[in-house]
């Protein structure tokens, strides 16, 4: 299960993701992040409460980053839990995405 909420803070669209990003929830995550980067210049995904991410979840985040890149929007993720950080490090996603220790706004 995943829960995604959005709000705007200091010019950033903040997408707060709670729960598990897996095959079951990947479409919801990707659609929300894509929609956010399509209509905002600066988007950050707050993963402080994201406890698990699978390959399907990683693809969703990466494809949202791809859309942001193609539109010239700024996209970042922040506040990774230990498990999620490990997955990002192993896959090399940390070399592609902008990752902040905490919310940049």
């Amino acid at each position, binding site marked *: 299960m995943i829960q995604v909420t959005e709000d705007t803070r200091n010019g950033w669209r903040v997408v707060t993701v709670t729960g598990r990003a*897996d*095959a*079951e929830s990947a479409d919801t995550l990707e659609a929300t992040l894509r929609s956010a980067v399509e209509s905002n210049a600066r988007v950050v995904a707050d993963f402080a409460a994201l406890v*698990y*991410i*699978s*390959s*399907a979840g*990683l*693809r969703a985040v*990466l*494809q949202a*980053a*791809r859309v942001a*890149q*193609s539109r010239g929007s700024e996209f970042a993720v922040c506040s990774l839990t230990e498990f999620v950080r*490990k*997955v990002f490090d*192993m*896959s*090399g*996603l940390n*070399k*592609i995405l902008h990752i902040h220790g905490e919310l940049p706004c």
Partner: protein
Amino acid sequence: MLTMLEEVVLLAVDESTGGLRSRGSFGTAYALVGAVFFDLALARRIDTDTEAVTILDRSPTGSAVLDRVLAAMAQRGDITSVRQWIEEIFYRRDDLEGEALASLIRQGILRHEKSKRLWIIDVERFPIVDNRTQRDVRVRIADAILSDTIPNTRDIMLVSIAEPCGLLNYVLTEDQITARRERIQLLRNLETISRKVAHAINDVETSMHHGAPRIM
């Protein structure tokens, strides 16, 4: 739309002769197993994390190859890791390349020719009937590697399979591959399945280097 397995097998067909470029290597065999797992992931039948594979849906996909692998996975609840499954399907892989070729022939992309060399040796060729599909695959691989933009999921998977099959040489020059080695590794590392395929190939090469091949 072609499967990942079909795309990479099509890439292995020599455009001018219809011969296969990569037949028989361990790298190719493991990479084709990886392609099947990518196809199952794209069909939303499996998901993976850094180690484990999860079956999400056991319903048929419509592809005989994928459905056979999926059925095998459903019967073996004792195997849970991506690496174990790559080895399991590698050993029981049957003829993934042959099945992909047969599908490409059915779709009118290739045709099948049989001839004799020195009157006794059977020679099979698969001349390309419609080269647009293979060209599209080449362009997608070249774009994914030569650009600095984030590729789409299928193109990341395609590079991840083509590289261990030794097929990048047919898309890019040696200089381009050398210059973009870091980018190729970055793309190949993104997916758990291709990381585990790389480990499997590396283990075979290491054991062969030490004179005791684990897999014959």
